[in-house]
């Protein structure tokens, strides 16, 4: 550091996001249909918003406990137990954060020492790498492959040399691929983690957004959702931090509320960072979240139904257009390949599609290894827009391929 506010080396080491350029091009035009948005197109359920309003009317604008309001931690404890079979007590094992993003960042800062290796199953949400770098760690990309339905395998971990890593980052249901890992898929990964003494950070922000028939899901036990958390597998609870939040399933992105689940000692370490950097998560958002858990289950179901229709529609249309499209089972993204015969890389496809047809998608390589040749397409937008966007993509492909 010099007197000229020179950014620290670890900050300089993180370049601009690959998404930024597409955002700038999209902002230049007013006819863009964006399928590049990583957040719901719904507003937060009214009951949750109303609870936030009421909390303000009652003057509930003070800090809460560092770990979050106790009522909310109790509600989170019940919810994750009922839905995902995760058993965490409100006193020591739950930390309410300013979005799941803060929970992820706290985990990096609490558990990664300078020089530690953090294995990240990729393609993955773009913030893990910078978060690791800011914490002084080294990212070890672990490539998942379409032939494995973008699920993480032990073979992929071994190929990457993850045996020597200190921490493994999982994001399932996955942004950007929409892949989901079942309990059976997770068992060998858990065995690998136990064998090589790997800690796990499991980002489960899309846990509610899964589309297999829930009543026929073989891996739904002991919870009721299709999604399985690695923390429920034998020997994994003590080595796993689970991050979740209200941004995706409850459409509360702007309220910035998430939480971390883990053993008491680990949560205590994360809280040590949190209490100095954040003090407590936004109080108004905590009231909204409490109401969301108490009364907004039907709203979540309704949104999931909408996503599911759009998911089927979009996958079907990409296949009709001649762009192979993996059967995404979670989140609100599909991950099609650029069409056979496209003379170039996905990045060029995405940029020309945006410039020539006004449709924004995100090239897959932005999300790390394994994303090359793919596009991330969000279906968190209305069906009319999706229809129009897919028609434009079809005409673009017809013209150029």
């Amino acid at each position: 550091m010099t007197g000229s506010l020179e950014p620290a080396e670890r900050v300089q080491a993180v370049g601009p996001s690959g998404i930024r350029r597409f955002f700038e091009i999209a902002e230049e035009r007013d006819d863009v249909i964006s399928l590049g948005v990583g957040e719901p197109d719904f507003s937060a359920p009214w009951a949750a918003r109303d609870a936030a309003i009421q909390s303000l009317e009652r003057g509930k604008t003070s800090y809460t406990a560092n770990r979050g309001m106790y009522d909310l931690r109790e509600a989170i404890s019940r919810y994750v137990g009922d839905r995902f079979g995760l058993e965490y007590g409100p006193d020591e094992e739950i930390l309410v954060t300013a979005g799941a993003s803060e929970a992820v960042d706290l985990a990096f800062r609490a558990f990664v020492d300078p020089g530690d290796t953090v294995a990240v199953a990729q393609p993955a949400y773009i913030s893990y790498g910078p978060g690791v770098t800011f914490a002084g760690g080294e990212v070890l990309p672990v490539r998942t492959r379409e032939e494995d339905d973008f699920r993480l395998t032990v073979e992929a971990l071994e190929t990457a040399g993850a045996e020597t890593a200190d921490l493994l980052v999982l994001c399932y249901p996955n942004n950007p691929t929409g892949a989901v890992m079942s309990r059976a898929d997770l068992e060998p990964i858990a065995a690998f983690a136990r064998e090589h003494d790997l800690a796990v950070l499991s980002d489960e922000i899309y846990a509610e957004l899964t589309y297999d028939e829930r009543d026929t899901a073989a891996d739904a036990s002991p919870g009721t959702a299709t999604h399985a958390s690695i923390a429920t597998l034998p020997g994994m609870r003590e080595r796993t931090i689970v991050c979740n939040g209200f941004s995706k399933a409850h459409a509360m992105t702007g309220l910035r509320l998430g939480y971390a689940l883990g053993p008491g000692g680990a949560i205590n370490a994360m809280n040590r960072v949190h209490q100095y950097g954040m003090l407590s998560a936004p109080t108004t958002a905590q009231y909204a979240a409490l109401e969301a858990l108490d009364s907004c289950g039907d709203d979540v179901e309704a949104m999931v139904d909408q996503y599911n229709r759009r998911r089927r529609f979009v996958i079907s249309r990409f296949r009709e257009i001649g762009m192979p499209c993996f059967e995404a089972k979670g989140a609100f993204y599909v991950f099609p390949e650029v069409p056979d015969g496209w003379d170039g890389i996905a990045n060029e496809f995405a940029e020309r599609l945006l410039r020539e047809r006004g449709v924004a998608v995100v090239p897959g390589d932005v999300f790390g290894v394994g994303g090359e040749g793919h596009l991330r397409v969000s279906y968190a937008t209305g069906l009319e827009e999706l229809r129009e966007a897919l028609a434009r993509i079809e005409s673009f492909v017809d013209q150029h391929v």
Partner: protein
Amino acid sequence: MSEREVLELLRENARYDTADIARMTDLDEDEVADAIEALEAAGIVRGYQAVVDWDRLEDERVRAEVELNVTLDRETGYDDIAERLARFPQVKALRLISGDYDFDMEVEGDSIREVSRFISEKVAPVPEITQTVTHYVMASYKENGIELGDGEDDDRLSVSP
């Protein structure tokens, strides 16, 4: 199950074509067409209409909600009275309900005068009707599940991670 899903989609937007419904439900187009035909044949789907925001039209359209109380006898039941009232084209909806009155009737006309005359000359004189209470609609905010405001702008970032 597939019929139910098709029905939900038609209720959401009756202009979805069979190809789009097929894509959204993982059914074949033929299966969708059969489901729609079956729903219509069974009298479950009775018609398709536009949801109109009358306030945006220049020409006046007057609507009223009318509470009706009736008295019954051995020869005349609710169904008989309803059948008689429902035949009037001015009556857009008619429901038997629980509570302080018997029927809830929606009436439309080109003017308050027209609606008033219809109630006083055609409805009130029905022998079994003992009371009418007419409420004129002053503004409508939601019809058939569709909010009639200007909608909320999509203020999300156009591309985000």
